[in-house]
């Protein structure tokens, strides 16, 4: 990510405000004609201070705050948090609740991947595919609405279980929707792998082989498209994945096409998995009692979000509010690879390569302090707090009057 000290370079900025990137991140691409020479990534435009905010909310309230880290993978954030807190509180969640958590998570994966398909198609200028994939995404959102009552923030989780059950009638609605989605997914798989014009924009573009992928620490579907065989659902099963393992999907070519194919095939496995879950829903209550204070201790929880591994660190000091919560979203692992992938590519392919990792910016934003003199430095809370007071004090007191 270092830039050559060439004064005459022509930099094309993308973001933080740009039609290709409706989310606030900044990329600077140095181009020679149409070919990208080097790239740099800058984050931090939408830092929301959620981790800090969790410390002044109760365990229950945090569930909904953390769910709102991401609009697309909301359920999986809540699941990761619940799993961690339940581990700390040593609460055993009933099996039916576990199964329903997995069920909603897989529905969410379908919803997220269809959304991504549309966005990626739009970046390449294939608006028709965008319109159709988003039209079909309505089906899965309707299913989620039938099940939980909301289309986006389903809030299906509570600490110690889930809120909503699936009855036979709903199971029938879900199955019907899944049949339609399966047919459509197969169709899109055919479209992305046979449409010659579209293939011109995806095949052999942004290639990342397995070694490069592992070097830059790429995870999730982006990694699996480069044959990085990692999937938290298999490696460290949670919820229902321990009893019913999922079939992983890997591709070997590592180009944009592989990223399309991996995600579409994952949708198909998700559809099969949901059908299987509906057939094998265990009988049990939906929730167990959850104490309002959580025993002191630390826990980590890992789940497979639609974009890759999501990691939570939770620390309790025995009170009714957490002591510290740390979130690492999958985009943070993937985003650095963009800076390497785009080098040598056409400017026109840059948006697609960028979107190929399925980035989610505000989820992964964080602030960083760069140590100018190369020294390592640790900031404790007191110092951070003082820094915040000073910073906002000098910047905003005037506006506030």
């Amino acid at each position, binding site marked *: 990510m270092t830039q050559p000290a060439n004064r005459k370079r022509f930099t094309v900025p993308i973001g933080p405000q740009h039609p290709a990137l409706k989310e606030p991140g900044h990329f600077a691409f140095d181009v020679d004609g149409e070919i990208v020479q080097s790239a740099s990534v800058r984050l931090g435009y939408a830092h929301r201070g959620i981790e800090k905010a969790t410390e002044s909310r109760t365990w229950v309230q945090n*569930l*909904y705050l953390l769910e709102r880290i991401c609009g697309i993978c909301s359920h999986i954030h809540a699941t990761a948090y619940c799993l961690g807190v339940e581990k700390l509180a040593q609460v055993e969640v009933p099996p039916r609740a576990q199964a329903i958590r997995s069920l909603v998570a897989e529905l969410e994966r379908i919803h997220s991947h269809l959304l991504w398909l549309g966005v990626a198609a739009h970046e390449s200028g294939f608006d028709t595919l965008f319109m*159709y994939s988003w039209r079909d995404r309505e089906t899965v959102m309707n299913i989620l609405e*039938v099940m939980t009552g909301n289309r986006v923030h389903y*809030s299906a989780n509570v600490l110690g279980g889930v809120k909503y059950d699936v009855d036979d009638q709903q199971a029938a609605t879900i199955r019907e929707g899944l049949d339609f989605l399966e047919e459509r997914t197969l169709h899109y798989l055919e*479209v992305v792998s046979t449409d*010659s014009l579209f293939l011109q924009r995806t095949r052999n573009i942004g290639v990342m082989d397995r070694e490069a992928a592992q070097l830059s620490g790429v995870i999730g579907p982006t990694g699996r498209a480069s044959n990085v065989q990692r999937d938290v659902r298999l490696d460290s099963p949670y919820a229902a994945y321990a009893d019913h393992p999922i079939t992983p999907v890997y591709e070997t070519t590592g180009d944009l096409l592989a990223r399309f194919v991996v995600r579409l095939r994952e949708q198909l496995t998700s559809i099969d998995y949901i059908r299987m879950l509906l057939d094998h829903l265990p009988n049990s209550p939906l929730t167990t009692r959850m104490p309002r204070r959580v025993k002191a201790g630390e826990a980590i929880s890992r789940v497979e979000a639609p974009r890759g591994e999501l990691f939570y660190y939770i620390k309790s000091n025995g009170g009714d509010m957490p002591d510290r919560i740390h979130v690492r979203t999958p985009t943070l692992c993937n985003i650095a690879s963009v800076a390497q992938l785009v080098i040598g590519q056409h400017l026109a392919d840059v948006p697609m390569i960028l979107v190929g990792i399925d980035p989610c910016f505000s989820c992964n934003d964080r602030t960083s302090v760069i140590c100018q003199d190369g020294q390592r430095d640790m900031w404790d809370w007191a110092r951070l707090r003082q820094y915040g007071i000073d910073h906002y004090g000098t910047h905003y007191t005037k506006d506030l009057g």
Partner: protein
Amino acid sequence: MKLGTLFKDAWDALFSEAATEPYPNPHPDETERLRGRLRWNPEGCTGCSLCVKDCPAAAIDIFVLDKKAKQFVMRYDIGRCTFCGQCMQSCRFDCWQAANDDWSLAATTANGFVEYYGKEEDIERVLAGPVTDDPVKV
């Protein structure tokens, strides 16, 4: 190698009704569990204020006028509510219900976004008194 792989979809779309709808539209089919505007039913309420404590958005406040006589007023701010359903989950007496047919929250004025539930004379007392901004804690 093919061209125009979406031809059939496009062709079918030409002769069927569009998937999008102009706004404002009546919601075509409200689902049973849809979480819309919340309604509070004072009947079972014991004034425990669990729902208030658990609400992540500070959208509800309870005014306890007389706990024994079950005189409560509930203030509900729809503008703050995130429709998470936690209050419905927290209340052991099923006082909270989400209306599945009242979900459209677009309005041109802010009036009507704060609602008071309870007996009319109690609400009047709450509105008149100095307690409006500082709910009586139990």
